[in-house]
C-alpha cells in the first residue's frame, strides 16, 4: 500500500507519540511513576486530558508555593501558613530540595478545665512580667495583675458560665526550614538524606533523616526504608509546671526536651497497568517531656461537680507508636482514584483507624476537580480523664486533652486544579473538618453531667497553591 505524503505525516506523528509514550512508560517504576526524561523522549506526552500529563521534572527546577488559611469554630485557633518549596532536579536524577514554612497562629485554645455553670477564674504567670497589656477573649478579658506583697505578676482570665474554658492569650509564630537531597546511586537504587529545623517562641524542633530505596522485579517493586532522629525542646513562656500542682502565677521549672526515633519501611508495588499500591510499616519511640505545660484538669467536688481547683496535667515520658499504612492509586478511565487506610496503635493505649478517598476527575482540558473524604476514629489514651475528683487518689498520669480522648472525625472537601502553561498548576482546596465525641459521659458528678465535656474541633480551611517549573 502506498502512503500519501499527508498520511505519511499522520503515521509519523502517531509513531512519534507512541515512541514517546513507550519511553515514558519504560521510565515508570513503582516508587516514582513519572521519571520520564523530556529531553530524551522528545515531545512532551499529553494525551489531551489533564490527568494524562507525563512530563518529567528531570533537569528542571520546580517551585511549589502555597498558603493555608485555617480557622476553628468558636473563636478558637486561626492559622495562616505560607510555604515555598524549591526542588532542583539534575539531569542525572538527583534532587536537592529546600522548603520554607511560616505559621502564624492566633485565637483561643482549650486550657483543659471542664465547663461549669458558674464563672471560672484562671490564674497563670504573666507572659511578659510587668506588662499592662490586656488580652481580650471570647468570654472576658485577660488582665495582668501584680499579686500584692509578692511581686509575682500574674495573668488572670475569666470564663463565663457554661462556656468551654479557653485561653485566648494563644498567639505564636513558627518558622521551619527543611533541606533534602536525594541521589540516584545506580539505575535501581536511590539514597536520600535531609535535615529540618522548626522554631517558635516556646518550642524548637531539630531533625535529621536518612533513607534508601531500591527497585526490583523490573521496577515493578520498590522497597524503601528511612530513619528519622528528632530532638525537641519545650520552653514554655513561664517554665514547665510540676505535675498535679495547683494552677498558679508562681514561676515554673526549667525547659524540658524529648528525643524521637522513627523508622518507616515500605513496599511500593505495581499491581497492574492501572493500579499502584503502597504498604508502609512505621515505628517510633519517644523519650522525654510530652506533657502540655499549659494544660490543666479540673479537680471537681465529688457530689456537686463544682471545680475545687485546677491541677497541671502529666503524661508518660515514653511512647511507642506503630502504624500500618496502605495507599493506592488506581486509574479508572479518565479519572484517578486515591484510596488509603491506616491502622495505628501506641503504648499510651490509643488505637485509631483512618480511611480516605479522593477521585481526580478531569472537567475540561487543563481543569480537574478532586472531591475527597476522610474518616478517622480513635479510642482514648489509658490516662485520659475529663476531670479529677476531689478526695480520690491522684493518678500517676492524667490529661483532659480531647486529642487523647475517644472521638470520630470526618473531613470533606474538594480541590480544583488548573493547568497553567506546560509545567504549571494553580489549585485551590477547601475542606471542612469535624470531630464528634461523647459530650456527656456517664458518671459525671452533680451539675457536671449537664455540661458539654467533649471539646473537639470544627475547622474550615482554604488552601491556594501554585506550582511551576523552569530550566
Amino acid at each position: 500500500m502506498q502512503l500519501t505524503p499527508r498520511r505519511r505525516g499522520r503515521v509519523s506523528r502517531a509513531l512519534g507519540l507512541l515512541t514517546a509514550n513507550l519511553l515514558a512508560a519504560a521510565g515508570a517504576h513503582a516508587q516514582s511513576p513519572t521519571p520520564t526524561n523530556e529531553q530524551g523522549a522528545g515531545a512532551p506526552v499529553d494525551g489531551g486530558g489533564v490527568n494524562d500529563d507525563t512530563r518529567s521534572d528531570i533537569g528542571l527546577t520546580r517551585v511549589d508555593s502555597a498558603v493555608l488559611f485555617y480557622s476553628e469554630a468558636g473563636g478558637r485557633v486561626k492559622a495562616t501558613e505560607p510555604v515555598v518549596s524549591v526542588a532542583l532536579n539534575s539531569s542525572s536524577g538527583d534532587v536537592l530540595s529546600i522548603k520554607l514554612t511560616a505559621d502564624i497562629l492566633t485565637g483561643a485554645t482549650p486550657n483543659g478545665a471542664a465547663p461549669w455553670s458558674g464563672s471560672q477564674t484562671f490564674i497563670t504567670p504573666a507572659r511578659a512580667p510587668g506588662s499592662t497589656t490586656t488580652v481580650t477573649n471570647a468570654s472576658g478579658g485577660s488582665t495582668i495583675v501584680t499579686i500584692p506583697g509578692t511581686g509575682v505578676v500574674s495573668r488572670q482570665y475569666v470564663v463565663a458560665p457554661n462556656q468551654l474554658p479557653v485561653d485566648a492569650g494563644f498567639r505564636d509564630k513558627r518558622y521551619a526550614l527543611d533541606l533534602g537531597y536525594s541521589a540516584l546511586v545506580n539505575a535501581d537504587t536511590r539514597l536520600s538524606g535531609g535535615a529540618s529545623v522548626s522554631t517558635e517562641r516556646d518550642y524548637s524542633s531539630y531533625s535529621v533523616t536518612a533513607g534508601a530505596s531500591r527497585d526490583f522485579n523490573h521496577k515493578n517493586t520498590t522497597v524503601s526504608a528511612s530513619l528519622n532522629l528528632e530532638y525537641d525542646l519545650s520552653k514554655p513562656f513561664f517554665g514547665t509546671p510540676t505535675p498535679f500542682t495547683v494552677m498558679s502565677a508562681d514561676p515554673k521549672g526549667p525547659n524540658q526536651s524529648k528525643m524521637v526515633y522513627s523508622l518507616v519501611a515500605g513496599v511500593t508495588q505495581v499491581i497492574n497497568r492501572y493500579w499502584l499500591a503502597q504498604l508502609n510499616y512505621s515505628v517510633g519511640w519517644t523519650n522525654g517531656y510530652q506533657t502540655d505545660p499549659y494544660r490543666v484538669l479540673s479537680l471537681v467536688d465529688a457530689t456537686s461537680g463544682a471545680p475545687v481547683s485546677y491541677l497541671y496535667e502529666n503524661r508518660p515520658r515514653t511512647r511507642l507508636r506503630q502504624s500500618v499504612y496502605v495507599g493506592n492509586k488506581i486509574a479508572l478511565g479518565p479519572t484517578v482514584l486515591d484510596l488509603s487506610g491506616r491502622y495505628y496503635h501506641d503504648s499510651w493505649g490509643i488505637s485509631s483507624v483512618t480511611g480516605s478517598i479522593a477521585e481526580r476527575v478531569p472537567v475540561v482540558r487543563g481543569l480537574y476537580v478532586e472531591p475527597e473524604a476522610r474518616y478517622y476514629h480513635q479510642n482514648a489514651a489509658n490516662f485520659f480523664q475529663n476531670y479529677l475528683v476531689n478526695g480520690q487518689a491522684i493518678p500517676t498520669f492524667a490529661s483532659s486533652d480531647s486529642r487523647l480522648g475517644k472521638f470520630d472525625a470526618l473531613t470533606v472537601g474538594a480541590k480544583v486544579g488548573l493547568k497553567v502553561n506546560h509545567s504549571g498548576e494553580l489549585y485551590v482546596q477547601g475542606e471542612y473538618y469535624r470531630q464528634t465525641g461523647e459530650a456527656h459521659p456517664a458518671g459525671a458528678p452533680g451539675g457536671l453531667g449537664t455540661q458539654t465535656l467533649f471539646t473537639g474541633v470544627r475547622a474550615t480551611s482554604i488552601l491556594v497553591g501554585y506550582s511551576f517549573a523552569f530550566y
Partner: protein
Amino acid sequence: MKNEMRESLWTRGAAGAVGAVILATCLSGCVGAAAWDRDLLARKSMQLNTHPIVTAYHDHIYFSKEGSSGGRTFDGGGCGCN
C-alpha cells in the same frame, strides 16, 4: 483416630502448601506491568503523592488535632501544637 488426625493435618498442610505455591506463582506472574504497558502509571496524576505540600499541610493539621499521626511518612510536626 490418631492416624486420621495425622492424615487430616497432612492433607491440610499439603493443601496449604499447594495453595501458597499457586498464590506465589500467581503473584509473580500476575502482579506488575511490562515496561511498555505503563503509560497510565507514568501519568503525574498517578504518583502516590501528587502534591507534597498539600500532604504536608494535612499531616500537620491532623498531627496537631488527633492522637495518632504518621503512616505515609514520618509523624511529628516539629511543633508544640496547641
